[in-house]
């Protein structure tokens, strides 16, 4: 039996969530006395791939091209490798690719699939993981009963652990051809912090009062190197694009630091942010429910507080 971890570089590099996934795979392989295999799908330099060895990736297969196009074909690729290496546990990130491939892969391998798992399994025999239900209102323990198991890991729920090994890197060849999906156009910005991978998120709600007031929020985000986000009313009103909507029906995020600015904290919004490590709320209403979800709160008018806060963090950053 072996453990297979699937990761993708982004813009040629690996971020913290990739290292976390390798660390996670290493820990599970160690606990189940299995061998860890890593499949890297995407363009990256050999040096970047070799860095994965810091976290325990000893056996790496590298598909050095970016080509995820057709979920069916991509899941075929992973299934093929899983069979060759006799993978008992397959670990994928809970991101766009992981979520797209894992369910199809589960059917191909008749494997039980636990998505958005939190941290390390609580038991290996039976294989039991922790997972949220009811959008964070419940925490469940779930047993994966099949011999092959697939999990996608919620970001920032395990952490990065160094286990320096000397990796063996092998080229992996797979040519994806799709007869089913045709790409018409692609519009991708590079160099942007992805909301779902961001360490810090600065998010605005209706309390921001209008799209014209977003500049100070963007300034704060820039100072902190953060991604920007918003609550549902803000995206529904068209103040901000829908891909920035964080909450139950929007994106579920798990940054280490989340700023909720002028967000009252409806239960649907909390469902999208309750995996954040630390939440800072600013609201003029001291009774706003966001304060019962937040770790730190500031009560007052955003138009005054926001620029001041940006200045404080700017000074703070330059002082470090």
């Amino acid at each position, binding site marked *: 039996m072996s453990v297979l971890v699937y990761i993708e570089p982004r813009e040629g590099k690996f971020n913290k969530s990739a290292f976390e996934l390798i660390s996670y795979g290493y820990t599970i392989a160690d606990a189940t006395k299995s061998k860890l295999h890593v499949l890297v799908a995407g363009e990256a330099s050999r040096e970047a791939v070799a860095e994965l060895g810091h976290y325990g990736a000893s056996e790496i297969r590298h598909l050095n091209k970016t080509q995820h196009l057709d*979920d069916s074909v991509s899941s075929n690729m992973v299934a093929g490798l899983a069979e060759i290496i006799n993978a008992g546990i397959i670990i994928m990130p809970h991101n766009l690719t992981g979520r797209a491939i894992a369910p199809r892969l589960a059917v*191909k391998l008749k494997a039980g699939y636990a998505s958005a798992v939190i941290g390390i399994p609580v038991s290996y025999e039976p294989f039991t993981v922790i997972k949220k*239900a009811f959008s964070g209102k419940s925490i469940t323990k779930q047993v994966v*009963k099949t011999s092959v198991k697939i999990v996608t890991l919620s970001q920032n729920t395990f952490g990065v652990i160094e286990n320096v090994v000397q990796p063996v890197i092998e080229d992996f060849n797979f040519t994806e051809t799709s007869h089913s999906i045709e790409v018409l156009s692609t519009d991708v910005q590079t160099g942007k912090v992805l909301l779902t991978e961001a360490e810090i998120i600065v998010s605005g709600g209706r309390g921001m009062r209008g799209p014209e007031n977003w500049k100070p929020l963007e300034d704060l985000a820039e100072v902190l190197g953060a991604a920007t986000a918003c609550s549902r009313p803000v995206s529904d009103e068209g103040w901000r694009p*829908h891909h920035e*909507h964080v909450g139950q029906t929007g994106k579920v995020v798990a940054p280490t630091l989340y700023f909720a600015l002028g967000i009252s904290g409806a239960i649907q919004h909390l469902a999208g942010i309750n995996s954040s*490590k*630390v939440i800072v709320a600013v609201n003029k209403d001291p009774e706003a429910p966001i304060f019962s979800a937040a770790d730190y709160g500031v009560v007052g008018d955003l138009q005054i*507080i926001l620029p001041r806060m940006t200045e404080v963090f700017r000074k703070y950053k330059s002082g470090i």
Partner: protein
Amino acid sequence: MNIIVCISNVPDTTTRIKYKPGNKDVDYTGVQWIINPWDELALTRAIELKEAGTVKKITVITVAKADAEPTIRKALASGADEAIRVDASPVDAWNTALNLAEALKNEQFDLVICGVESSDYNNWSVGGMLAEMLRIPSVSAVTSLQIENSKPIITREVDGGRQQVSIKLPGLLIVQKGIAIVPRIPSMRGIMSARTKPLKVVTGVSGESLIEIVDYEAPPQKSSCKIIDSENLEMLAELLHTEARVI
């Protein structure tokens, strides 16, 4: 074009979740049931396309016992033409997908649309599993759907942006927020016409689960919020660094 929309009957998203003694089952007494929000957006888009004339028929399908029928009727009232209820109590996502796949084998369709997840078990599974079981192509993270000359023009989210693709039919789309913005409220006319729209009940396949929930508990309570004086924001930076250790 004929569209199938898969819908799930879930507790209202504002429901406070309680458990039966032993914490192995959820106590659903007094719960208000709704169409899973993502499925409702999928249905809304299908209805918009039908009104635009590019979709001929919308069929909603769900795997549930008879108590889900109010939710099915609501989908019909909102604008679906027909409904199928697969009579089974699904035991996990796999089992749900299997029941849908078995029922859909007998149906004529061009496109199946599933919400990206359900707000009860958050499994992110059924759409992809169903596509694989039906052996049809799928596109996930779909944020918009147009139909031009009987060809679906799909926008999907990709890292850092979006991509426009088309899919060979029959195909399956896994949709998220953006596919529609505000769910359709059924009109009285719709509610009246739902009375006579066909609702077919088919027998489900027996329950084999690959995943089993063995325990539920409430999430840990957050410790209370520290209020920082708005005149002393330096304190916030200080605490985030020394106490929370996040900057």
